[in-house]
């Protein structure tokens, strides 16, 4: 199927001098459908669709929304590389000057898609890209370092407020104007440390800070340490002999040949690997790509990281209800496991959908 719909007329015609914008939205905002339509493949429509109206009015007369790309969230999430490539080729003939994705608000997969496609477009065409989402959207943490993400509220009801902020920053990016701090422009902090001259010297500010801290008043650090947030523990499993158990590992265990090309440290992706019918992690089928330790022992016996041999026994003995027919693997040293928030969210959805009731996470 040819999913690349080329423009029907010379795209230059009628759009002379205007700044060309491509807008990316999902199936929901394109009013195609909700979850049941989330698997639609990328398509391109000329001109404005859905929230593009607000985008158009915010950007003003000098801008023209040349086309809108629509893609289902599930399709994008499951086919990131393919979907990205397709969309890049779809918009290439338009020679866009600006790419706007979303905003995605609190929709997780939509947020990830907006971030991923915006980042890819920036890399491919070297043009300004922008999106918007709620700060707890997993796409925010994943992409805020790479692109500008305007912070929105957690529902689409915020569209009226969010779009003008997106337009304002987008115009500054197009015009090459100086981008001010996150609080001034409304984007999520990208974690880029930029120098400036404060009115007071550092020691003076430190005295202010200690006096506030000692007095029990609110105070703000100038450099936040890596976040150490907490999630309360879930209730215990009532009876593990009736529950489906899955294994997740950060120990980098993958099938021989590493089909998903998982990186050897601080991986940016994960793999889901089938173990149907296997009674043990044999060294001819599995290996580790982890670069963070001496791998000799684990290469010899991958059960040392994914304890399939004993879990299968326990499944047969009825000690556990059932073992999931796959395990999930990524690579991380101890500390960076904490950063793998975004894909943790993704695969947790799958675990829930597959009825997994308990997880054993192994790390080296």
């Amino acid at each position: 199927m040819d999913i690349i719909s080329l423009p029907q007329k010379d795209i230059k015609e009628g759009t002379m001098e205007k700044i060309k914008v491509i807008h990316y939205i999902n199936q929901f905002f394109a009013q195609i459908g909700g979850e049941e339509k989330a698997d639609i493949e990328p398509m391109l429509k000329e001109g404005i669709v859905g929230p593009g109206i607000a985008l158009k009015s915010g950007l003003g007369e000098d801008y023209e929304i040349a086309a809108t790309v629509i893609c289902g969230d599930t399709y994008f999430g499951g086919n990131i590389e393919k979907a990205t490539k397709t969309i890049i080729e779809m918009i290439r003939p338009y020679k866009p000057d600006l790419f706007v994705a979303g905003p995605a608000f609190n929709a997780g997969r939509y947020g990830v898609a907006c971030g991923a496609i915006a980042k890819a477009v920036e890399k491919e065409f070297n043009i300004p890209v922008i999106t918007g989402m709620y700060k707890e959207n997993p796409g925010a943490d994943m992409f805020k370092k790479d692109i500008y993400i305007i912070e929105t509220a957690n529902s689409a009801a915020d569209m009226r407020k969010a779009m003008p902020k997106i337009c304002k920053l987008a115009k500054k990016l197009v015009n090459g104007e100086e981008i001010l701090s996150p609080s001034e422009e409304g984007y999520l902090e990208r974690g880029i440390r930029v120098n400036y001259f404060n009115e007071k010297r550092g020691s003076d500010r430190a005295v202010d800070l200690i006096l506030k801290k000692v007095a029990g008043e609110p105070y703000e650090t100038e450099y936040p340490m890596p976040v150490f947030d907490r999630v309360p523990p879930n209730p215990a499993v009532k009876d593990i002999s009736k529950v489906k158990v899955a294994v997740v590992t950060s120990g980098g265990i993958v099938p021989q040949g590493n089909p998903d090309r998982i990186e050897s440290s601080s991986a940016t992706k994960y793999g889901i690997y089938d173990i149907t019918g296997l009674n043990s992690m044999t060294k001819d089928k599995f290996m580790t790509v982890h670069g963070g330790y001496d791998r000799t022992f684990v290469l010899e016996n991958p059960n040392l990281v994914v304890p399939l041999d004993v879990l299968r026994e326990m499944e047969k003995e009825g000690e556990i209800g059932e073992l999931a027919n796959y395990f999930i693997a990524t690579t991380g040293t101890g500390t960076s496991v904490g950063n793998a928030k975004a894909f943790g969210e993704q695969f947790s959805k799958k675990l829930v959908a597959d009825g997994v009731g308990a997880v054993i996470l192994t790390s080296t």
Partner: protein
Amino acid sequence: MNYLKDGTYTDVLKKTRDLIHSNYKLLTHPMSGSLKPNQTPYKSVIVTEGCGRIDYESVILIENSMDAAYKFLKFKKTPLWTEKILNDFKTVDLSLIENVIKNPMFNAI
């Protein structure tokens, strides 16, 4: 005494990490000295055998140090220094580690 003749700064850290993973404990900081990992080609680290278990603090220190080293090397590789400068780096590395060995406490631990 383990001398990585053709090794790099990160090779020393990796070797140190592997030792720590087999129950060695760090005695000196892996990033001793203010020289950044992409400046000096010389690095000495002292570890000791046998607390019979993994030393957590050593693991965390070495991981942080490796992260930091890769960060610097990503942006700029260690230059190929002249013999004279290499000697200076050697002198400083030796001085850092000598001060530890000379410490009367060192042999007691």
